[in-house]
């Protein structure tokens, strides 16, 4: 039962353009959402989060949008840089249990 889904396994973007990574969830009890970035052979690194009482959170080049009615969140990276190439996982929190999506591999081309 996949409660958090990332339907795009991969995404390719030109350097300097916007990267948009999407995530859908099914559990309306989720009240906190997070994005992690993972390089090969390393542990995931926390990027940005958003509470369910907000619809947008921004941190530098990274912005997360939450649409609760659609049960959808997205991560925008502007401008994209080659160093952003990694696997991005979205996660949702339901009382200390974290549910992860399957990840989207972002490739930013120079």
């Amino acid at each position, binding site marked *: 039962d996949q409660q958090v889904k990332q339907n795009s396994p991969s995404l390719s973007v030109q350097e300097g353009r916007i990267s948009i990574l999407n995530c859908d969830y099914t559990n309306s009890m989720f009240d906190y959402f997070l994005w992690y970035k993972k390089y090969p*052979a390393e542990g*995931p690194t926390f990027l940005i989060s958003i509470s369910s009482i907000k619809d947008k959170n921004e941190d530098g080049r990274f912005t997360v949008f939450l649409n609760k009615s659609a049960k959808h969140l997205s991560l925008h990276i502007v401008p994209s840089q080659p160093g952003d190439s990694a696997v991005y996982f979205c996660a949702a929190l339901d009382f200390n249990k974290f549910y992860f999506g399957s990840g989207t591999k972002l490739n930013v081309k120079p």
Partner: protein
Amino acid sequence: EAGVTQSPTHLIKTRGQQATLRCSPISGHTSVYWYQQALGLGLQFLLWYDEGEERNRGNFPPRFSGRQFPNYSSELNVNALELEDSALYLCASSRNWGSGGNTIYFGEGSWLTVV
């Protein structure tokens, strides 16, 4: 502040053996989570420990077990190893939920190879 530390970095075992992986959480964190990432797959939740107790476990057989020590460090044990247990095992920690534990921080992982 030191992050989550895991050991060993790499471990090679033969089928049927037991593997033990260790994790030290960030100072002040009482919750420890274990995840498995098999090649090409996402993060699969294994176990969650908080204050020394197992709070939840994922859909894994009982040969995956662990414990949390009084200093909040944790170990994951995998008995009767099978080839498909080969994966990256990630440990993460967070503060207790009541203390704002809404973000988990991962270690670098332990690579387990079963031959």
